[in-house]
């Protein structure tokens, strides 16, 4: 329920507090259904993904990797998932190492 609340709040904030009618038109979800969602009805996964996609598009973020990762987590074996996790973790570690230091003497200062 928290994720649902968060995504609805994000959507409302990003789209300038749209009316129920505007939300229904934008998301393709029926007007009465939108009303029920805003009043506490549990969201279906498909509805959540629609809102999530809208939020990410508004924020300029790609949703491809996340949807793909979700699909992998649903369909692949634990071994295959661990393999992907290992690859992604290494990518992130290399990214972290590649971030520029602000001061060339930062290391010497840290150690001293």
């Amino acid at each position, binding site marked *: 329920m928290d994720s649902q609340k968060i995504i609805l709040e994000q959507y409302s904030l990003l789209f300038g507090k749209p009316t129920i009618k505007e939300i229904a038109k934008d998301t393709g979800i029926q007007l009465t259904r939108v009303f029920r969602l805003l009043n506490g009805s549990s969201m279906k996964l498909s509805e959540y993904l629609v809102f999530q996609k809208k939020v990410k598009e508004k924020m300029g973020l790609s949703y491809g990797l996340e949807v793909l990762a979700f699909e992998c987590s649903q369909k*692949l074996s634990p071994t295959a998932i661990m393999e992907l996790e290992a690859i992604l973790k290494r990518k992130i570690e290399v990214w972290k190492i590649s971030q520029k*230091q602000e001061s060339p003497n930062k290391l010497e200062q840290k*150690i001293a």
Partner: protein
Amino acid sequence: MSEGLLMVERIVIESLSKKEKNIQEIELDTNLSHGLLLNIMPNLLMRNMIRYKSGIYSLDKEHAFLWLSEINKTENIKEEAREIFTSLVNQYFKNDEELKKPKVSQFKIQKMWLTKEEEMILKSHMSTLEGFFTGVKEARKYHPQREKTCEQRVVVWGITDYSDLIDGVLKAV
């Protein structure tokens, strides 16, 4: 993150395994930028793999048994090997505009049927190749050429059955 090494960390360890160095010497030996090294060195220090004293970095040989056995665990070596192979493939398929220097990467994949005799000849060639590499490394111990760690050539080779490769791909899901 697993307790293995990234390629950028391993080259630093290899550099320090030859002799202790200051950061400028590591920079020259590994061709890693100063900024990158400033991010790598604290990680290695925290993992007790290296020591730092009066501007000089050295391998932490006291704890070597602990960290060597960790980084050389099969699953960690497997991930490093995967990283090497992926980078080799990416490097080979870079176009001329992306490469900053003349292309040195070679990458060949061959599939063929071999008779028993041909299989033995191939194994013999591969043993000869391995013997050649061992000989070169021995020669470097007695006749060092002041080579930089980053200037080493990386050679990847292996052999397997086609069907095993396909099986592996199908089972990896």
